């Protein structure tokens, strides 16, 4: 069975036991007060039942009060209301009971005392004295008559004596008259027809008569009719035995006897009542106290029970309100009744039901908003454009991945912070923030322009636009969208240069061969007819023409190479192997430069044009070697790395040196044609490299190292399809 149900049944059994014991005890008490023997027999049971009733009530009440106290201490909802109600009910019950009890005690005390008033006692004593006087008078009269009669019969005996005794009995209306000898033997008797013969007188009487004194006493025989017994010694006389005495029993007059009995009974009753006065008062008080205790215990228990029953709906309401306050809208309270409290509970249940519906609707809306937000976040994350949301104080509210990628800083961790705090002195973000602040300070809130940014390593060109968001709360917010158009501009520039190169190759290279042939023809035809001095001049001039034409041819070839149409021959090969071959080739040239190669063993074969990639490595290594001329302890590091974490798996080639690095003024334009820091050179090396990289869908960047030197980083997609994705992503 459920322990709670078991406990409930136990309590009910205890209550039933207490009530049953109380009722049974009362019934027994009613029965035994009419029969003392029965009372003696049943007294232990009565005591046991009364004790059971009191103990049961005490246990129940103590348990209730302890539970109430514990709830009060633990701040259980509704406990204070219950305690207050119990206090109120208890006061309403206990105070009248106590008043009634005190008045009952007082009346009881007064009533019992009134039974024993002094006036009653005095009246009783007076009646007693009066009775005694009347009887004493009667006794003395009878005694004197007996003494006188004794003197008149002193000399009589035999029949004469019997006649005188009979005459005296009749004259004195005595019950019997008897003459005894000194030993107490009856000598002559006169008694009524129905009276028994007198027996031997008591020893005390004989002793008193023997001493010569008369005897008188009041006798109370069995039938309750009092008699006066008198005895007197007969004087000595001639011819009769000495020591005789006469004994006469007189009936006390009926009226006097009745009055004397009444006084005696009243006195005895008064004495008995007086003896029980003290225990009677104490008993009544104790009984009243016991009844009061049982009644009060029962009443207080009833008050506690009623208060708990009354406040249970309120407690439920409080608990329900707290549960609702904590967000539990599933709370349903039991309907206690159909009264006002029931209406209140019903209203509460209805309220929680409505709240639950509202919350479900709000949750549905919130989920929809969340889904939209997630979709927007996905869209933003997939955008190649950077998107920032900032407030007027440049506090970052939101940023997508592309924004961080473009500005070279992880912006996700800066949400909620000021952009100013997260910027360094020379970072792209610093330039971005500085430009943004300048525009905001000037009052601009909406623009769409191109922005050039530059840091220590690279330069970027952004196309950025700003527009304010509708007011959200108390702060105006701005959304800034920007694109890195550096590659686009480079591509445009590269295309322009390609067109120039193609035209140059077409327009310049064609006349060069006739020029060179004409110069050689002129030298062959004229050299033999000239003197030595002029021959030397011609020789030098034609040599110069041929040499410069070769130089121009070489330059035009370079342009031609730069401008040629992309024809990529894709094949799978090991970039590590290619890099190792190229490094080994340059090591053999004995340039005095320490070339270090670090290959990533995880790098798989890539799908690319092996010849073009070799050209990339050759150009970059040549540039590095040229940049290190005259540098002591020169070193070049070639490193490959497999970048599989990026959206598109790529192979990375990094060539770094410890030379002077790129000049500051050309760092941002290092991959443009004719941009070079070398005295000699076409300035197309890095431009061609960039073109090849772009043909493969890769990316190239150049930067100066903080410790000195430059580093060029090339990223090539691992496969052709990835290359397409990479291009799409960059677009």
């Amino acid at each position, binding site marked *: 069975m459920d322990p709670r149900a078991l406990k409930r049944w136990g309590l009910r059994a205890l209550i039933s036991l207490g009530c049953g014991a109380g009722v049974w005890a009362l019934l027994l*008490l009613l029965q*035994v*007060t*009419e*029969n*003392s*023997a029965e*009372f003696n027999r049943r*007294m232990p049971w*009565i*005591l046991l039942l009364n004790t059971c009733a009191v103990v049961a009530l005490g246990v129940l009440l103590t348990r209730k009060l302890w539970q109430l106290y514990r709830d009060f201490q633990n701040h259980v909802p509704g406990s204070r209301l219950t305690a207050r109600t119990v206090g109120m009910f208890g006061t309403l019950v206990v105070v009248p009971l106590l008043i009634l009890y*005190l008045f009952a*005690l*007082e009346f009881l*005390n*007064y009533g019992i005392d009134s039974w024993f008033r002094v006036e009653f006692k005095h009246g009783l004593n007076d009646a*007693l004295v009066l*009775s*005694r006087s009347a*009887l004493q008078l009667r006794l003395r009269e009878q005694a004197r008559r007996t003494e006188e009669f004794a003197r008149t019969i002193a000399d009589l005996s035999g029949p004469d004596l019997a006649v005188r005794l009979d005459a005296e009995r009749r004259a004195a209306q005595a019950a019997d008259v008897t003459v005894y000898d000194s030993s107490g033997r009856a000598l002559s008797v006169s008694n009524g027809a129905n009276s028994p013969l007198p027996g031997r007188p008591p020893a*005390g009487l004989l002793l008193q008569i023997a001493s010569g004194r008369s005897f008188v*006493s*009041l*006798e*109370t025989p*069995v039938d309750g009719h*009092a008699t006066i017994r008198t005895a007197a010694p007969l004087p000595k006389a001639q011819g009769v035995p000495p020591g005789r005495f006469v004994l006469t029993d007189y009936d006390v007059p009926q009226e006097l006897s009745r009055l*004397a009995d009444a*006084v*005696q009974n009243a*006195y*005895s*009753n*008064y*004495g*008995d009542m*007086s*003896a*029980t006065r*003290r*225990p*009677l*008062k*104490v*008993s*009544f*008080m*104790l*009984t009243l*106290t016991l009844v009061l205790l049982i009644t009060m215990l029962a009443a207080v228990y009833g008050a506690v029970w009623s208060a708990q029953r009354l406040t249970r709906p309120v407690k439920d309401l409080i608990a329900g309100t707290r549960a609702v306050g904590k967000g539990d809208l599933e709370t349903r309270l039991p309907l206690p009744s159909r009264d006002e409290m029931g209406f209140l509970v019903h209203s509460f249940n209805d309220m929680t039901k409505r709240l639950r519906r509202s919350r479900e609707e709000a949750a549905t809306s919130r989920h929809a908003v969340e889904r939209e937000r997630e979709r927007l976040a996905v869209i933003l994350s997939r955008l190649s454009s950077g998107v920032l949301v900032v407030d007027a104080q440049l506090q970052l509210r939101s940023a997508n991945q592309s924004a961080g990628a473009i500005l070279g800083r992880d912006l996700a961790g800066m949400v909620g912070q000021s952009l100013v705090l997260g910027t360094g002195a020379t970072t792209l973000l610093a330039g971005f923030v500085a430009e943004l602040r300048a525009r905001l300070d000037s009052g601009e809130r909406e623009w769409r322009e191109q922005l050039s940014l530059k840091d220590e390593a690279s330069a970027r060109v952004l196309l950025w636009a700003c527009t304010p968001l509708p007011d959200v709360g108390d702060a105006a917010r701005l959304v800034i969208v920007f694109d890195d158009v550096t590659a686009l501009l480079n591509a445009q520039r590269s295309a322009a240069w390609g067109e120039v190169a193609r035209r140059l190759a077409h327009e310049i290279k064609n006349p060069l061969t006739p020029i060179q042939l004409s110069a050689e023809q002129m030298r062959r035809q004229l050299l033999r007819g000239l003197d030595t001095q002029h021959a030397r001049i011609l020789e030098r001039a034609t040599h110069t023409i041929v040499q410069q034409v070769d130089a121009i041819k070489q330059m035009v070839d370079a342009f031609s190479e730069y401008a040629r149409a992309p024809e990529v021959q894709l094949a799978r090969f090991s970039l590590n192997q290619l890099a190792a071959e190229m490094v080994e080739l340059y090591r053999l040239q004995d340039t005095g430069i320490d070339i270090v190669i670090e290959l990533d063993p995880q790098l798989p074969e890539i799908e690319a044009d092996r010849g073009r990639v070799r050209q990339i490595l050759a150009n970059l290594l040549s540039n590095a070697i040229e940049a290190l001329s005259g540098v002591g302890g020169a070193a070049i590091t070639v490193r490959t790395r497999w970048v599989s974490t990026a959206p598109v798996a790529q192979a990375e080639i990094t060539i770094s040196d410890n030379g002077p690095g790129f000049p500051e003024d050309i760092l941002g334009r290092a991959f443009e044609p004719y941009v070079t820091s070398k005295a000699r050179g076409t300035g197309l090396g890095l431009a061609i490299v960039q073109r090849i990289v772009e043909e493969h869908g890769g990316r190239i960047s150049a930067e100066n190292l903080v410790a000195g030197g430059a580093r060029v980083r090339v990223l090539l997609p691992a496969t052709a399809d990835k290359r397409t994705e990479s291009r799409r992503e960059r677009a």
Partner: protein
Amino acid sequence: MATPIRTVRLLTAALLLAALSAHAADPLDGELEIRSAYAVPSHGVIMLSVRVGYPRSDLLSATLKDGVTLSFDLECTVSRHRRLWFDAEAVSLLRHSELSYQVVTDRYLVRNVDSGTQETFQTLEAALERVGTVDEWPIAVDSQLERDEEWQISLRAGVRRGHMPDALRALVFWSDAWHRTSDWYTWTLVR
């Protein structure tokens, strides 16, 4: 009418009195015992003779002279011991007599409540002697008591103060100041 404070004081005093009443001097204090007893079969009837010593004191005399009646009970049971069960009781008798002081006649009255007979005595000593003397009290018929069983006779004397109504006796059940009982005096019946 008294104030409630007085009532509370009175109640407290009554409670204290009730608690201390057992230790105060009482007219019933004194020796209460069965001094001698014997039972003999006589013509098919078991006759019992008993001598009981009751308390005697000036306080008892004064109490009687105040009008209080003393009640004397003499309980007699004849039972047979049974193993693992209650004793079998063949006879249970109660002899009841009263002693009062006749204030009008200045004599002590002894009344046998069962038979209604009464006697007066000049002195308390004589009256108590009479109450404590029981001769040839028929307690059982011989046939009531099986001969092959061992019967035990038990006697207990009691004295109660006051001629208290039963209703009042029920109310003073908590106190033993109004009555005394002797120990049980038990012996085996010899036939």
